C-alpha cells in the first residue's frame, strides 16, 4: 500500500520538478542540458510508474484500489474535496503508457528542438504537460480530474502557441483553449449533477452510490461529462481545434495531439463506467458521436494536403474508435486501442517531423516526392506506423482495432451499424495512410530529397509560415537558421526505433484465444460492470472480424497503390466525378464555418453592439444621464438665482424675514 502511494506521488512529482527546474533555470541551463533534464525526469517518472505497477500487482486483487490523500483541498460544508489520488489498474496502465511514450518523445525533442531559441521553455512546458496529464489520470476525485483536465488544456494551449510570433499559432492556441474551456464547463456541470445525487466528490464513493442517483441527474451528468470528453478528444462537433493545433512543434503534435491528451476523453468514459452504465442514452450518444467522428474525419484525411493535418484527422478518427468502444461497454478494447495508438501515432508524427525538417518546414505533400532513398530510416518507421494504423497483421493496430469492432458488434442491435461504418473507415484509413506514404516517399525525388541524398540538408532562403506562406519572424520560431535534424541525430533515431518496435509488438499482449494479459490486468477496475461480464464475442465473430479487418487494410493499400503509384490520372478523374463530395471534404464538412456562424459571430456582434450602442445609449444615456441630468438641472435652476449682487441677497433676506414676521403677527 505505502509503496504504491509513494510511487504514485513520485511519478507525478518528477515531471513537475522538471518543469520547475527548467522554468527557473532558464538562464543557467545551457546547451542541451534542459532537454536532458526534461528527458531524465520523464524516464525517472516512467521507472517509478513501472514500480508502481509491480507493487500494485503485489496486492490482493480486491485491494487494488489505493487512495493516496495529501491534504484537504476544499473540504467545507457539503464538500469533501481532498488532494487525493486513486491508483488502480486502469490508472496505472494509462500512467505507464503515457510516461513511456512521453519519455521517448522528450528524447526525440532533445534533438528535434535543438536549434530552437525557446529550448528551455519548450521542455518546461512539455514537462508541465506530462505532470498535468498524470494528474488527470491519477486523480482520485472529480476536483482533481477537473484540475488535471484544465491543466492539460493550458499546456496544450501553451505548446500550440509555442512559436507565438506566428499569428496563426496564437489564433490556433486561443481556439483550442476556448473549446477546451467549454469542455471544462461541461465537466464541471456534469460533476454538479452527479454530486447532487451522490453527495461526494470522491470516485469510489460516487461509484458506490451510482445506483442511487436519480436517472435524470445521471443522464444529464453523463451527457455533460461527454461534452468534456468530446472537447478534449476532438469529437464532433467540438473537433475543429485539433487540426489547427498542428501549428505547434511536431513533438507536441506527437505527444499531446496524438498519444496522450486527446485520449483523455476515452479515459474519462472508461473511468466513469459505473455512471454510464446507469444511463444507456448517454452511452448511446457517446457511441454514435464516436462513430460519426471516425467516419467524417477519415474522409477529410483523404483530401487534405498538409502532412501533419492528415495525421491529425487520422488521430480524430482513431479516437472515434476508442470513444465508440468505451461508450459501448468495450472498456478493455478501448483502452487497448489507446495503448497501441499511442505508439504508432507518435511514431508517424515523429517520422513526419523528420520529413518536414528535411523540407525546411514545408508541410504540403504536393511538394514532397521520393524521400525513400534520402531517408531510409524514416521511411521504414513511417511504413511500420502506416501498416499499424491501417490494421495489417501482425502489427499492433490490427489487434486493437479488431478487438474494438468485435466487442461493439457483440452488443448487437444498432451497434452493428456502427461496426459496419467502422470497417468502411478502416478501408479509408488504409487508403489515406498509404496516399501519404506513396506521395512522400515514392516517385522522382524532389529537389530537397535530392539534396539530402547528397548528404546536405535543405535550408529555405527565408523561413515562411507553412500555412499562410508569409515570411516569419524567427526570433522565437522554428526552423532556426542552422537546423540539422532530419533523422541524423542519435536521440531521434533511438526514440523512433523503440516506438517502431512497439508499433509492431505492442498488440501481442492481447491476442484472441492466445493471451488475455490486458483483460486480466484491468479486471479489478471493471469487475462488476454489466458489459464486462456479458460481452464475449464468439470465435466466429472474432476471427471473422480479424479477417475482414485485415482485408480492409490490405485492400485499402492496394487501392492507394493503384491510384497514386500506377495510374495517377485516376485521382484526377475521381476528383472531377465527385466534385461536390470533394469540396465538402476539403472544406472539412464546413464545421469551422458552422461554429463561426453559430457562436463566434453572434458573440462578436453582441460585443460590438454592447460596446458601441448599448453602453452609450442605455448605460451612459439613461442610467448615468438620468441622475446626472437631474442634478445638473437642479443646479442650473439654483445657479440662476446667484446673481453675485450682495445687496440683492440682503434684500431677499430682509424680505423673507419680514414675511416670516408678518406671518407670525397675522397668526397671533
Amino acid at each position, binding site marked *: 500500500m505505502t509503496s504504491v502511494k509513494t510511487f504514485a506521488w513520485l511519478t507525478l512529482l518528477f515531471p513537475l520538478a522538471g518543469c520547475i527546474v527548467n522554468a527557473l533555470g532558464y538562464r543557467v541551463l545551457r546547451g542541451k542540458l534542459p532537454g536532458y533534464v526534461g528527458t531524465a525526469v520523464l524516464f525517472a517518472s516512467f521507472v517509478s510508474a513501472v514500480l508502481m505497477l509491480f507493487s500494485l500487482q503485489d496486492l490482493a486483487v480486491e485491494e487494488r484500489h489505493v487512495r493516496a490523500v495529501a491534504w484537504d483541498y*476544499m473540504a467545507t460544508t457539503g464538500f469533501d474535496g481532498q488532494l487525493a489520488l486513486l491508483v488502480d489498474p486502469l490508472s496505472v496502465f494509462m500512467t505507464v503508457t503515457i510516461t513511456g511514450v512521453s519519455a521517448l518523445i522528450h528524447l526525440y525533442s532533445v534533438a528535434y528542438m535543438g536549434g530552437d531559441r525557446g529550448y528551455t521553455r519548450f521542455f518546461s512546458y512539455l514537462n508541465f504537460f506530462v505532470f498535468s496529464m498524470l494528474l488527470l489520470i491519477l486523480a482520485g476525485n472529480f476536483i482533481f480530474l*477537473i484540475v488535471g483536465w484544465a491543466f492539460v488544456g493550458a499546456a496544450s494551449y501553451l505548446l500550440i502557441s509555442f512559436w507565438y510570433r506566428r499569428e496563426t499559432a496564437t489564433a490556433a492556441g486561443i481556439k483550442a*483553449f476556448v473549446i477546451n474551456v467549454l469542455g471544462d464547463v461541461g465537466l464541471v*456541470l456534469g460533476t454538479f449533477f452527479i454530486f447532487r445525487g451522490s*453527495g461526494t466528490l470522491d470516485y469510489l464513493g460516487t461509484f458506490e452510490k451510482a445506483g442511487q442517483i436519480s436517472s435524470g441527474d445521471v443522464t444529464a451528468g453523463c451527457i455533460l461529462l461527454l461534452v468534456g470528453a468530446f472537447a478534449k478528444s476532438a469529437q464532433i462537433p467540438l473537433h475543429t481545434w485539433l487540426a489547427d493545433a498542428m501549428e505547434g512543434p511536431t513533438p507536441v503534435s506527437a505527444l499531446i495531439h496524438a498519444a496522450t491528451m486527446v485520449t483523455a476523453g476515452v479515459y474519462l468514459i472508461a473511468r466513469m463506467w459505473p455512471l454510464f452504465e446507469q444511463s444507456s442514452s448517454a452511452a448511446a450518444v457517446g457511441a454514435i458521436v464516436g462513430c460519426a467522428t471516425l467516419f467524417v474525419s477519415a474522409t477529410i484525411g483523404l483530401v487534405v494536403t498538409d502532412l501533419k493535418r492528415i495525421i491529425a484527422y487520422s488521430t480524430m478518427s482513431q479516437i472515434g474508435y476508442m470513444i465508440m468502444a468505451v461508450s459501448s461497454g468495450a472498456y478493455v478494447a478501448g483502452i487497448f486501442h489507446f495503448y497501441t495508438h499511442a505508439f504508432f501515432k507518435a511514431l508517424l508524427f515523429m517520422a513526419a517531423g523528420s520529413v518536414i525538417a528535411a523540407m525546411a518546414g514545408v508541410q504540403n505533400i504536393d511538394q514532397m516526392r521520393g524521400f525513400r532513398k534520402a531517408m531510409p530510416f524514416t521511411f521504414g518507421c513511417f511504413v511500420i506506423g502506416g501498416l499499424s494504423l491501417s490494421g495489417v497483421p501482425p502489427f499492433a493496430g490490427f489487434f486493437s482495432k479488431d478487438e474494438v469492432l468485435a466487442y461493439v458488434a457483440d452488443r448487437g442491435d444498432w451497434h452493428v451499424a456502427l461496426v459496419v461504418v467502422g470497417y468502411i473507415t478502416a478501408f479509408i484509413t488504409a487508403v489515406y495512410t498509404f496516399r501519404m506514404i506513396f506521395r512522400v516517399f515514392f516517385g522522382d525525388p524532389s529537389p530537397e530529397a535530392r539534396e539530402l541524398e547528397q548528404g546536405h540538408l535543405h535550408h529555405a532562403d527565408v523561413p515562411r509560415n507553412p500555412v499562410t506562406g508569409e515570411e516569419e519572424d524567427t526570433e*522565437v520560431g522554428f526552423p532556426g537558421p542552422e537546423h540539422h535534424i532530419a533523422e541524423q541525430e542519435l536521440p531521434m533515431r533511438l526514440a523512433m526505433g523503440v516506438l517502431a518496435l512497439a508499433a509492431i509488438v505492442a498488440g501481442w499482449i492481447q491476442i484472441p484465444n492466445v493471451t488475455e494479459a490486458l483483460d486480466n490486468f484491468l479486471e479489478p477496475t471493471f469487475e462488476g460492470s454489466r458489459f464486462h461480464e456479458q460481452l464475449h464475442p464468439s470465435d466466429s465473430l472474432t476471427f471473422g472480424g480479424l479477417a475482414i479487418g485485415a482485408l480492409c487494410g490490405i485492400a485499402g493499400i492496394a487501392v492507394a497503390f493503384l491510384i497514386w503509384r500506377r495510374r495517377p490520372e485516376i485521382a484526377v478523374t475521381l476528383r472531377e466525378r465527385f466534385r461536390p463530395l470533394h469540396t465538402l471534404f476539403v472544406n472539412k464538412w464546413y464545421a469551422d464555418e458552422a461554429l463561426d456562424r453559430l457562436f463566434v459571430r453572434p458573440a462578436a456582434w*453582441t460585443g460590438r453592439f454592447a460596446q458601441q450602442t448599448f453602453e452609450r445609449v442605455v448605460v451612459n444615456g439613461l442610467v448615468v444621464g438620468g441622475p446626472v441630468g437631474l442634478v445638473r438641472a437642479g443646479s442650473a435652476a439654483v445657479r440662476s438665482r446667484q446673481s453675485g449682487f450682495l445687496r440683492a441677497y440682503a434684500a431677499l433676506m430682509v424680505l423673507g424675514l419680514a414675511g416670516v414676521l408678518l406671518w407670525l403677527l397675522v397668526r397671533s
Partner: protein
Amino acid sequence: MTIHLSIVLWLPAFAGMLALVARRFAGWVTFVGSLAALAYAVALLVDFDASSGALQYVTDKLWIDQLGIHYKLGVDGLNIALVGLTTLSFTVCVLWATLEREHPPQFFMWLGVMHTAVLGALLAQDLLLFVLFFDLMLVPVFFLTGIWGAGDRVRAIIRLFIYTLVGSLLMLAGAIALGVLSGTGGEVSFALSDIGSVTLDKGTQEWIFLCFAAAFLVKMPAFPVHGWMPDGYRSMPLPVLAVFSGVLSKVAAYGFLRVVTPLLPDATAHFQMLLLLVGLASILYGSIMAFTTTETRLILGYSSIAQLGFILLGVFSLDDDGAQGAILQSVNHGLVVVPAFFIVGLLAARAGGSQDLRDMGGVAFRAPILAGLFLIVALATLAMPGSSNFVGEFLILFGVFDTKIVIAIVAFTGVVLASVYMLRMFIRSMHNRVNPGVTPTDIRFADGLVLVPMVAVILLLALYPQLPLEKGEQTIPRQVEAASQATGDHHEIQVIR
C-alpha cells in the same frame, strides 16, 4: 497575546499622518505602517479560532450614548480573510507607489487613510460605524484621483462621487431606519448584534433592503449602475485603482453578507431573484464588454464587473456553499486584480505609455519573467481549475445550481467568456509580432518586489484553498441561514467525509 483591533485599524492612518512630516521618506513610512498592519493581520489569522463561530477580539465602547452608536469592532469568519486581503493589497500598493518615486507625502497620507477606512468598514460591528467607514473610503479616492489622476480626472471623479454618494445617502437613511425601528422600548442601539435580535415586518424590510442594495451595487459596481466605472478607471492613478478595484469593491459584497442577509432575511428572500438576475446580467455584460474593448484598464474593469457578478450570485444563492464561495472569490479576485493592474502599468511602460492593446505585442521573448508572471495571473483570473479562483467559482456556481439551476447554467457562459478576454489580453500584449512602438524589456528587481509576493500568495492559495475556507466554515453559512429559510426551499446535502 491579546490582540487589539483598534491597533490594526488605526495604524495605517497614523503612518499616513507621519508621512506628512517624513517628507522624503513619506512612502517608506507609510509602507512600514502598512507592513505592521499586515503583520498584525497575519498574527490575527494565525491566532484566530476557526472552530468557534463567535465574534473574536471584540472591542465594544458606547460611543454616542444618546444615539446608541457603539465603537464596536470584531473579527469572525466572515471578515478575517478580507482583513488579510486588505492589509496585503495595501502594503503591496503602497510599496508600488513608493517605488514609483513620484508621489508627494499627501498621496501617501490619503492612502493610509483609505487603508484605515477599509479596515474600519470590515471590522465594524455597529451599523452606523460601518456606514461611517464605508463613506470615509470614498474621500481619499476623491482626492487621490482629483489631484493625481490622469486625463479628464475632475469630470470622472465628480461623476463617481455623485454616483456613490447617492447610494451612500440611501444607505444612511436605511441604516438609521433599521436602527430606530428595531429599537425596543425607546432604547436605540446600532450594534449589529442588537439589531439582529429584532425582526421587522416584511414591508419595512423591503424598502430598507433597496436602500442598502443601491449603495452596494453602485460600489461594486454591478450592471446597470456601473456608469461611473469606465471614466473612473481611466483616470485613477494605478496603485489607487488597484486597491479600489481589488479591495474597496469587495466591501460592498461583504456588506451584503454582514448587514443585509442576516438583518433583512424576508426582504432578501423576496428580492433574491432580482439580485440574482442583476448578478447574471453583470457577468454577461461585463464579459462581453471585456472582450471587445482594447483599453487594458477597461478589460480589467469590465472583468471586475463580471467577477463581482459571480460574487453577487454566490451571496444571493442563499446557500452555504454559495456564500462561502462569494467570500473566497472576493479574496481571490482582490489577489489577482492588484498584480494585474501592476502589469497593466508595466505593459504601458513598454508600449510607449499607451494603454491600448493595439499598441502592444510581442514582449514575451525579451521579457520571459514578466510573461510567466502575467500568465499565472491571467490564468488565475480566468478561474483556471487548480487556482483558488476556481474553487471560489465552483462553490458559487454549485450554490446557485443547488437553488436556481437555470441561472447557474447561464452563468457558466461567463466562465467561457472569461477565458476569451483574459487570453486575448495576454496574447495581444505578450505574443504575436513586436509592435513598432514597443520596447521589450524584462521587469526590474523593484517591479519583482511588488509582483512576486502577490503571485506567491496566489500560488499558495492555489495549493491550499482550504486555508481561507476553513476560517469561514463556521460563520458564513449562518449569515444566510435566516434568509435561506425565508425562501422556503432550504435543504441540506448529506456529506460523507
